[in-house]
């Protein structure tokens, strides 16, 4: 609280990036957790909520005649342009936000104050939804070749690994400890994924401290043990995800890569995924492209190519993230991905921030685009996970390792995102997914060459707040509604069948039946009643010079929409943000056959937090 110099500023303008005509005037509030913009206008009072932890940069631009512009860029790719009438107010907001967006202690993060009013039991259940051991059990482990090792209890060997680590049975504690001493940050090779059909496995580790010639007997034995754990194969691939040049350069610092001469039966392979600094710059460049004002097709395509982002995405895909249902929990959270350093939730070295998880999420999306029936979840699921990695509303993605998370008692003090997503799972389901579909069986084989240019720009993510850019109707939601409706009809059919049987028995007359039948028809109709509209963009500037009726005045379609928009705004993070009143309609297109019964429940943290807003 003490950081807020200016809790409220009036007559602030919120600019629309796509259309300069659509600026909204309203009041800006700073609270302990959110920046809130409330539009003036008694009818709608559209609100834009932004969590402080989502803010990635704040830029104060040169004062103009209309006021002092403030540009807020968020980690979920929202960009908010405000114009504050007084320079002094703008400065105060700016200084406050700089401090609020960079908390210095974990305890300042939103998840420690976020309270969705669940009891203790429910919270604990939420944390147990994803259990690592169960994940491994699903893969068929432990078995004859792999076992849990407690060598890392109390984080004695490697503080960024979890306490329970899966290693080959033949690897003794001596070998593990020895190997860990030869690895960067002591991250020895440990099991990541096991394929029970053919005993093949994926292990991971950090780079060896080989320098130009050093070797380590235990590390060599460790790799040998991994090879033996797959009796079907007489060699293992060692895949180095760096470009070869980077790996070689690291040798000078006493690190490097495995020498094929020292390790028996390994095949060495570089794949050339660039390091975090290159990736960060690439994302930065791509976001600049997304932010361009009225770019031509050429500007956009050149910008996208120059950013190299899709090239990196392809490199990662090539590297082999083929496993469709890789669970984020296992692969990213439990194995000490440096969440805090990489996502900049706390004030720290900006050079340590990198978009690796963004890239992973995008890779999954690219796979979904190629295999529309293979994933049980939909695009919204990915977008909301990305949102919450940065929102700090849930404890899952905090800290850098299990050790830190335990020390902070994250599980006792915060809530789990998985429970939250599970609760609203209906919103995240892919209607095309069927467990018995061919695409859901076994490994996906994405097309790589020669059509490697099938990777697309993901405007649903990087321009997700520019509603006007997106398809105006959601196929996913429509199909979910259709599916639901079919189910309802089937249930009704069962009920009717039952009732008919009873009728025949009880010899009642048929009036009730025909009523029921009418009702089922209504359901069908309402599903198709997906009225939608939008307004033209600025297709021309010339029209302005030709005075005439304003294009959006007195338009029935638009004003009818505002009412429905109101229902949505509090429930969807996408909309609670900077949504465009008119073209935000796609979300209305069809939610549920019964009409508004199941709006997508979503988070953005605002539902829980009304009190904070008012108290300020």
């Amino acid at each position, binding site marked *: 609280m003490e950081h807020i110099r200016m809790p409220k500023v009036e007559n602030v303008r919120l600019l629309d990036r796509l259309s300069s005509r659509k600026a909204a005037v309203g009041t800006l509030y700073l609270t302990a957790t959110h920046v809130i913009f409330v539009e003036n206008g008694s009818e709608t009072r559209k609100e834009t909520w932004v969590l402080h932890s989502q803010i990635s940069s704040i830029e104060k631009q040169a004062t103009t005649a209309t006021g002092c512009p403030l540009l807020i860029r968020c980690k979920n790719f929202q960009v908010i342009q405000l114009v504050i009438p007084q320079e002094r107010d703008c400065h105060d907001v700016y200084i406050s936000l700089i401090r609020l967006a960079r908390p210095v202690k974990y305890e300042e993060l939103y998840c420690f104050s976020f309270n969705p009013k669940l009891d203790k039991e429910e919270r604990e259940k939420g944390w147990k939804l994803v259990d690592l051991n169960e994940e491994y059990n699903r893969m068929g482990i432990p078995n004859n070749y792999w076992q849990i090792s407690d060598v890392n209890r109390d984080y004695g060997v490697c503080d960024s690994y979890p306490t329970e680590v899966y290693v080959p049975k033949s690897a003794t504690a001596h070998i593990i400890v020895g190997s860990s001493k030869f690895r960067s940050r002591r991250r020895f090779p440990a099991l990541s994924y096991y394929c029970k059909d053919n005993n093949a496995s994926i292990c991971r580790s950090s780079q060896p401290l080989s320098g130009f010639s050093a070797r380590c007997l235990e590390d060599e034995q460790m790799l040998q043990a991994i090879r033996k754990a797959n009796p079907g194969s007489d060699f293992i691939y060692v895949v180095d995800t760096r470009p070869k040049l980077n790996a070689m350069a690291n040798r000078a610092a006493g690190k490097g890569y495995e020498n094929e001469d020292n390790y028996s039966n390994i095949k060495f392979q570089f794949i050339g995924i660039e390091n975090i600094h290159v990736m960060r710059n690439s994302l930065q460049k791509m976001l600049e492209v997304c932010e361009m004002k009225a770019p031509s097709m050429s500007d956009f395509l050149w910008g996208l190519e120059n950013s190299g982002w899709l090239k990196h995405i392809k490199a990662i895909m090539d590297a082999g993230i083929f496993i469709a249902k890789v669970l984020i929990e296992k692969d990213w959270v439990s194995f000490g991905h440096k969440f805090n350093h990489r996502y900049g939730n706390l004030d720290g070295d900006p050079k340590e921030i990198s978009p690796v998880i963004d890239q992973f999420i995008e890779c999954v999306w690219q796979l979904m685009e190629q295999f529309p029936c293979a994933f049980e979840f939909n695009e919204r699921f990915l977008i909301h996970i990305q949102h919450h990695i940065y929102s700090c509303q849930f404890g899952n993605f905090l800290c850098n390792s299990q050790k830190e998370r335990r020390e902070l008692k994250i599980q006792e003090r915060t809530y789990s995102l998985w429970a939250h997503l599970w609760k609203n799972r209906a919103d995240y389901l892919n209607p095309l997914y069927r467990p018995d579909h061919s695409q859901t069986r076994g490994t996906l084989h994405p097309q790589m060459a020669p*059509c490697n*240019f099938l990777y697309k720009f993901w405007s649903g993510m990087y321009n997700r707040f520019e509603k006007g850019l997106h398809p105006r109707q959601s196929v996913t939601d429509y*199909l979910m509604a259709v599916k639901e409706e079919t189910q309802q009809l089937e249930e*009704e059919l069962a009920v009717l069948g039952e009732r008919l049987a009873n009728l025949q028995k009880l010899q009642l007359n048929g009036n009730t039946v025909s009523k029921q039948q009418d009702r089922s028809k209504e359901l069908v109709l309402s599903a198709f009643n997906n009225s939608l509209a939008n307004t033209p963009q600025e297709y021309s500037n010339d029209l302005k010079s030709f005075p005439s009726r304003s*294009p959006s005045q007195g338009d029935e379609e638009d004003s009818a929409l505002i009412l429905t928009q109101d229902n949505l705004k509090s429930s969807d993070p996408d909309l609670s943000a900077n949504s465009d009143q008119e073209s935000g309609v796609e979300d209305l297109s069809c939610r549920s056959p019964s009409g508004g019964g199941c709006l997508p429940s979503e988070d953005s943290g605002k539902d829980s937090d009304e009190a904070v807003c008012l108290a300020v």
Partner: protein
Amino acid sequence: MEFSELIKTATVESVLLSCAGQPAVKGTLCITSHHLLLSSCPGGDGQPSAVELWLLIRNVDAVEKRVQNVGWYQPPRSSGSPRDTRLAGSSGTITLRCKDLKVLQLEIPGMEECLNIASSIEALSSVDSVMMMYPFFHRPQSLRLEEGWPLLPVEQYFQQIATQTTQWRLSDVNQDFATCPTYPPAVIVPAAVSEETLRRAARFRQGGRFPVLSYYHARNGTVMLRSGQPLTGPNRKRCPEDEMLLGSVLDEGERGFIIDTRSAQMAKQARMTGGGTEPKSSYPQWKRLHRPLERGRPLQESFIKLVEACNDASLGMDRWLGRLESCRWLSHVKAALSTACLAAQCLDREESSVLVHGAEGTDTTLLVTALAQVILEPGCRTLKGFQGLLEREWIQAGHPFHLRCARSAYSHARLKQEAPLFLLFLDCVWQLSRQFPFSLEFSEGLLLTLFDNAYASDYGTFLCNNEKERCLCKVKESTHSLWAWLDQPEERKKYLNPLYSPNPLVIWPSVEPQSIQLWQGFFFRWIRSSQYLDEAWAEIWRLVESSNTPVKESTENRLSRSLSDPTTRMENER
């Protein structure tokens, strides 16, 4: 000319056919006057041969041949005559690049046969006489000639708008195609304007294309007109009848927009060659907007380059986007969509009438007027309505299909009048369908079929350049209509969008670069497998159908069955 003169070798045995993404098959190749066939015998005797290829030769865009003389490998001391051995051992490969962008390879044993086949295909595919083309020979059993030709589409459209306004009338000033050779016999014109005025105005417009009604916006009574450029010339000629014609569209104090599909510079330059644009002084109520749209050669080259890029297997992700940009195709899509949106915006939001023209008024003009109608008019987004739109705004309106679609992206022939304006239109409609997945009754499949038929067809619908030519060739009397074929129930279903639900509103698309996508279903149709996307499409059909018919029907069926069940009926009667 006899087709048989062009066919030097009619059949060849043991030809190997290969096609990207499919296993190669061996069989007997056969050339007929219009088709290339390959049939294989899958197993032992008695099994019926399977037809593996049935290719309309008109569909062939380019023929590339390569012969290998493998006779060289024969041991020189073989007993037979060395010459025979060489010939028997020689073979050739023909690569057929089709107008629908499919690529086929035929490995033909025997050099001579190979060369003969190649030259026959070349000759047969470039027959230029319309009446020699396959539609004049195609006689499907399920259709009867002269059925299914849309009856007077312009007249029908007029009937539709006549219920809403009396400001317009149907004119038969062009009955004998004398006033404008590229207009249909009937056109819709302002009710107040006489035939003589129309004739005089026609003389002041390129190709005689005087302003006619293209679309009536029922919501506010504004109209979209189209025409050729005015022939103002270097001396700034005027034509009072033309001015009167345009003036009669607007009430006093009303203003209209002229959307010129050329840049201001180009329009000005056109004066030197007798063309030009409407000067403000002579048309005070009209405001001119210039929206340059590419056409002609640059557009064809853009298409060729893009197809090349899509086929370039050596291209990596790092260079793909730059290559895509340099093709400019997506820029053309964006420009066409934006201009159509501008026209639609003038009508719907500014409530002003619009005149669209470029130079001839047969290319970009029609692109804009047709596209604007899809955006504005829900009726044009149904299967039937879209056919009507194509018939009115492309075919009857005189888009020169025969010239524009003579060659596709692979042809090595010197470009003459080819330009993929119709493809650009289909691409824009595809962009709309992607942004509004429920609002079009038809699916991507229809757009692909329309493209294929515009370039090579069994049907007469896209033949010739205008109605006058179609009359001379007796197209309606001697060929079948594509629409009749598509309207058969089993065909029709293939082209429907399962997600369609009528949307009475204007669909304003986003024209930001992020929203414009490459039409992969078209440009990669033969390059990569669409198996997974097809499966998803089938799944969508399954979901929608299971929700629509079976459950409902089975509910009703079961109910009625039960109700007609004797015991129940007795209960009811009692």
